[in-house]
C-alpha cells in the first residue's frame, strides 16, 4: 500500500502531461491531416524558453511562464507558413507522408539548435513549487498537483474554445470537410495557421511542465512526443477526448508496469498493448473507419 500511492501519483502526473502533449498533436492531425514530427522539439524549446527567462535573465515568473506559449506559437506558425502550406499547395495527395518527412527534418534542426546554444548538459527548471501535500499517508508534491491542475484548466479552455467560439467552430468545420467549409466562407488557410499556433503554444507549456519534474535536455520532448503519438494512435488519430482518456489509462499502465517489471519494460509493454488494440481495431479504439473517396 505504501508503494501504491507514489506509483499512482506518478502515473496520474505523467498521464496529465501525455494528455497535454496529445492535445496539440490531435488538434493538428484533426484539422490538417498533418502529423507534426516537430512537436517534441516545440516541447523542448518551450522548456528552454522558460529557463532562459527565469534563470538566465532573471525575469519574474509570470513573464517566464508566458514565454513558452509565445515561442511555441511563433514556431508553430512558422512551421505552417514555411513547410506545411507549400507542401499542401503543391501536392495535396501526398501531403500526409511528405509533411512527416519535412517536419522530421525541422525537428532534428530545432533540437540540434538547442544543443548548440545551451549545450548537452542537463539543467534544472527553476519554476517549480516546493513542498508536498500529505493525504492519508500519501505524499503528493505540490508541483504534481500544479501540473494536473494546469493540464485540466488548459483542457477545459481548449474544449470551450473549440465548442463555443467562432474560431473554434471554424476549426471544427475545416476538420470535418475542408472544401465545404471553404465554400461557406471559412478562411481555411488562416484556420490552419491558428491551429498550428495554438498547438505550438500548448506544446511550449507542456515542455515547461515536463521540464519542471525532470530536467532540461535537448531531447526533452522526444519521449513525451513518441508516447503522445501512441496515445493518439490508440484512440484514433484526431479524436481529442479519446486521446486524453488513452493518455491517462496508458500512463497508469506504464507506471505500474515500470514498478512491477522494472523501468525498462514499461514502454515495450505499452507498445505491445497498443499493437494488440490496433490489430483488434485498426482505426483506433474510438476511431470510426474513415470512408474515403478514391
Amino acid at each position: 500500500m505504501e508503494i501504491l500511492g507514489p506509483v499512482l501519483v506518478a502515473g496520474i502526473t505523467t498521464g496529465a502531461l501525455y494528455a497535454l502533449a496529445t492535445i496539440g498533436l490531435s488538434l493538428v492531425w484533426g484539422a490538417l491531416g498533418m502529423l507534426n514530427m516537430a512537436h517534441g522539439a516545440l516541447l523542448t524549446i518551450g522548456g528552454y524558453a522558460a529557463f532562459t527567462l527565469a534563470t538566465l535573465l532573471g525575469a519574474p515568473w509570470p513573464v517566464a511562464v508566458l514565454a513558452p506559449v509565445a515561442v511555441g506559437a511563433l514556431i508553430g506558425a512558422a512551421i505552417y507558413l514555411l513547410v506545411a502550406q507549400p507542401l499542401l499547395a503543391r501536392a495535396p495527395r501526398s501531403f500526409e507522408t511528405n509533411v512527416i518527412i519535412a517536419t522530421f527534418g525541422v525537428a532534428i534542426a530545432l533540437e540540434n539548435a538547442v544543443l548548440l546554444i545551451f549545450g548537452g548538459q542537463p539543467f534544472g527548471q527553476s519554476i517549480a513549487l516546493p513542498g508536498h501535500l500529505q493525504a492519508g499517508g500519501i505524499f503528493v508534491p505540490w508541483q504534481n498537483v500544479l501540473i494536473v491542475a494546469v493540464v485540466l484548466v488548459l483542457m477545459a479552455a481548449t474544449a470551450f474554445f473549440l465548442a463555443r467560439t467562432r474560431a473554434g467552430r471554424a476549426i471544427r468545420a475545416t476538420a470535418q470537410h475542408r472544401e465545404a467549409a471553404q465554400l461557406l466562407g471559412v478562411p481555411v488557410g488562416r484556420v490552419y495557421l491558428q491551429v498550428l499556433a495554438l498547438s505550438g503554444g500548448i506544446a511550449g507549456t507542456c515542455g515547461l511542465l515536463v521540464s519542471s519534474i525532470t530536467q532540461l535536455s535537448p531531447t526533452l520532448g522526444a519521449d513525451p512526443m513518441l508516447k503522445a503519438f501512441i496515445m493518439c494512435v490508440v484512440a484514433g488519430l484526431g479524436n481529442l477526448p479519446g486521446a486524453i482518456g488513452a493518455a491517462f489509462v496508458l500512463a497508469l499502465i506504464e507506471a505500474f508496469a515500470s514498478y512491477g517489471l522494472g523501468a525498462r519494460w514499461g514502454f515495450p509493454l505499452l507498445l505491445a498493448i497498443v499493437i494488440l488494440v490496433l490489430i483488434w481495431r485498426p482505426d483506433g479504439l474510438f476511431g470510426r473507419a474513415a470512408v474515403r473517396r478514391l
Partner: protein
Amino acid sequence: MSRADRGHLVFGLIVLAALAALPFVADSRYVLGQVILALFYAIVASQWNLLFGFAGVFSLGQMALFAFGGYATAMLGFYLDWSMWLAMPMAAVGTVLFSLIIGLACLRLAGAYVALLTLAVAQVMYLLIVTDTDCFVMQGATCRQFTGGAVGFARFGDLGTRAIFKGDYVVANYAIVAALFLVTMGFTWAMIRSPLGLAFQALRDNPGCAVARGINRFSTQLLVFGASAFFTGLAGGLYAAHFQAIGPGVLSLSTLMFIIAIAVVGGIGKLWGPLVGAVILVLADEALREVGGEYRTLGLGLIIAAAMVLMPKGVIGLVEGVMARLRPASGRATELAKSGT
C-alpha cells in the same frame, strides 16, 4: 525494352564503370572508406525507397531492420564463433523473419499509423539494448550484456580480407560492398518490373482501384516489406563485419533521418535516386564537417526539410524535368505516356 529500362541499364553500366575505376583513382584510404559508407547508406536508402517510393508503405523502421541484421551477425560471430560469411546470410534471413513479424503487427494499418508504429518499434529496440545491464557472460573482468548494452559488440570476426590482402584489405572490402550494392540495385529493378511490383505500384497510385482489381493489399505490402528486409539486413551484417563493430548508434533518429534525407534528395520513387542522394549528402556531410562539425546535424535537418518543400521529386526528378523540356515536343507526349518508373 522500354525507354525507361534502357535508361536504367545505361545508368547502371556507368555506375559499374565508375565503381570499378574508383580504387585506381582514389589515392587515400579515407576517401575509399567514405565511399564504402556512402554505398551502405545507398543500399539501405534504396530498400526504403522500394518500400515507400514504389510500394507506398511509409515505414520508419528501416534502421531497425539494418540493426537487426548487424546485431544478429555480430552475435552469431561473438557467441557461436561463426564465420562472418555464414553469419551474414543467416542474419539476413533472420531479418526477413523479424520484418514479417513487425509487418504482421503494423501493416494492417495505413499511412501515418504505419510510420508511428514502426518508429515506436525501433525506439523500443534502442531502449531495450541501451538499458540492458544484466551480465550474460563475463569477458575477463568485464561484464558483457546479451545485447551488448550501450557499448555494443566488437571483435567478433572479420571478412577475412585482412589476412589475404594485408594493407590493401580496404580495397577488397570496398569490392565486396560495391558488389552487394550492384546486386541490391539489380534486385530492386527486378522487383519493380515483376508482377508483384506492378501490384504494389498500383496499390500506391490508386488503392481503391487496385483492391477492386483483386490485389490483396495486406499480403502484397507484407511481401514487399519482407523482401526489402533481406538486403537491409544483409547490409547491416556487412556493415558490422566491415567495421568489426556494431552499437546502438545505428538505431538513433539522426541515422534514420540521414537515410530518409538521401532518398528525398535523390528522388523518392526513382530507381537511382538513393545512389545520387547518397553521393550528394556524403559530400555535403564532408563540406559541413569542414565548416564546423557541430553544425552537421542542424544542416542535414534543414536540407531534408528544404528538399521536401522545394524539390519533392529530388535531384533526379529535377534533371528529368529539364530533359523533358529540352526534348522536341513530339517526343514529349510519348515520353509522358510511358513515364512512371
